[in-house]
């Protein structure tokens, strides 16, 4: 359930981290990490709250400088990123429609001193259509529900024609149908060759939707990076989290829980 991207698309590495340490003010919050993201790949970055997931991804996005090492771009240019933050930093006081918010995703491509063109508006509308939010186009952004805002922000990220789309806790606050719809979207993005990075504190929420897992558990634990099939086993997860974890597959879906604890 990882992607429908062609092999050719998959071969294109967009970003590489080799022994990169991430953190703040010179203090790493995670051990060194090696990671490559290729076009059309779906990657899940999972770990408990406060374990360093968002710090890792913000470093990949260029919002934070690595403490050690460097983020490499094999294409010799920074890939186009789309980012939907965990708690949207977008200020809802602004009197903007959903279409205007989505159109902002085009600003990086348009560049300064140039106005938005009808083609940009059409791209923004198409992005809203992609996330099934076209009917929200004229609605004020501040009047939308949490789930609707999330969709509009995904549309804005899509409007930027991203090569890598980063979704931080994309299912937080969503009901089950919305969560399912969001994951269907993720699948459609990877099928179009967009690399998707899903960040979540709930391993079960992303496990079935990614091909590669990055499991972070704080500075004192090595970062585990590998194919989902390798990492998503009771034995590996128990070792990573240092507690008995059970992985079962029920009706094709992974169910993960702490042995003796509640299912997740």
């Amino acid at each position: 359930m990882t992607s429908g991207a062609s092999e050719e698309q998959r071969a294109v590495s967009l970003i590489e981290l080799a022994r990169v340490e991430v953190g703040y003010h010179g203090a790493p919050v995670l051990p060194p990490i090696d990671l490559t993201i290729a076009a059309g790949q779906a990657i899940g970055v999972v770990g408990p709250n406060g374990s360093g997931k968002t710090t890792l991804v913000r470093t990949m996005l260029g919002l934070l400088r690595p403490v050690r090492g460097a983020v490499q771009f094999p294409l010799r240019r920074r890939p186009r990123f789309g980012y939907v933050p965990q708690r949207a930093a977008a200020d809802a006081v602004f009197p903007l429609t959903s279409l205007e918010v989505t159109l902002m995703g085009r600003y990086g491509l348009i560049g300064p001193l140039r106005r938005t063109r009808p083609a940009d508006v059409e791209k923004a509308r198409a992005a809203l259509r992609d996330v099934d939010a076209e009917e929200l186009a004229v609605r004020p952004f501040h009047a939308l529900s949490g789930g609707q805002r999330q969709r509009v922000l995904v549309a804005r990220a899509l409007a930027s024609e991203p090569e890598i789309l980063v979704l931080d806790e994309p299912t937080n606050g969503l009901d089950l149908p919305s969560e399912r719809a969001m994951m269907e979207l993720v699948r459609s993005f990877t099928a179009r060759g967009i690399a998707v990075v899903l960040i979540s504190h709930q391993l079960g929420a992303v496990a079935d939707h990614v091909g590669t897992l990055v499991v972070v558990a704080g500075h004192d634990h090595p970062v585990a990076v590998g194919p989902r099939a390798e990492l998503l086993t009771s034995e590996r997860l128990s070792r990573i989290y240092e507690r008995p974890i059970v992985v079962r597959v029920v009706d094709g879906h992974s169910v993960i829980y702490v042995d003796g604890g509640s299912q997740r």
Partner: protein
Amino acid sequence: MGDPTAVMGFWEAWPLWREIVAVAIIAAAMCSFVGVYIVLRRVVFVSAAMSQMSGVGVATAFFLCSVMHVEPHDAPLWLHPLWYAIAFAALGAGLFSLNLGHRRLASETLVGLGYLIAAGSVILILNSPRVSQEAHEVNDLLYGNAVVSTPAQLTIVALTAVVVAVVHALFGKEFRFTMFDAEMARTLGLRTRGWSLLLFLTFALAISVSTRAIGALPAFAFMVIPPAVGLLIGDRMWSVFAISIGVGSVSAFLGYYASFRWSLPTGASMVVASAVFLVPSLLRLRAR
């Protein structure tokens, strides 16, 4: 408006007030325009702090004139208080655009510190024995004088408004994105620190020139009240800007008229006139 002779007197006195009213309307429109960003960014006291910092510039210019034994009226161009006012306000813009918050000190506390240090510095400089004899003139330059104006002042205010308008026309979309969601803007490759600095520099320009032209209180009021009215009534950015500019301009004129008609303090009349527009907008908000 019950006394028609007073109204006639106002229009007959047109040559007396046309410049200061033009100055007030342009300054009010400019402050009301940039004020939309200031209110949206929730940094209304940044404008007060920048106003004080530009005051330090004026006081510094006068101090330098006295040290160099130059009469302020005959000072060379490089000693003109306006340049120093703009330079010091720009310094404030640079500091405040960085949003220098700290775990123990919120960024608004730093704005407060900037205001207090600047206000204290102005008083200290103006109380230096060399400058005190110019206190009246410095006071006018510091806190403005919405009663009289000169063609030169009108030119300065109009040119400043044109510069601010052109910068916003060219880079409005970058300013909006940076203010709305700086993190996403940076992700898309926008240099948000640079855009934020440029935006704050337009604040500095508007504040330092307007404060000198119409006074600190009305300049501050026009940066807060008309944008608040605009945000209460308008649903789109363009309508908020239009309402804010309209309310600011009309308030400047009404305030001056009320001041002329009933011999009221001009700056305070402008502030109250703009505050009147809050009433229908608050009623509309309640009705929603």
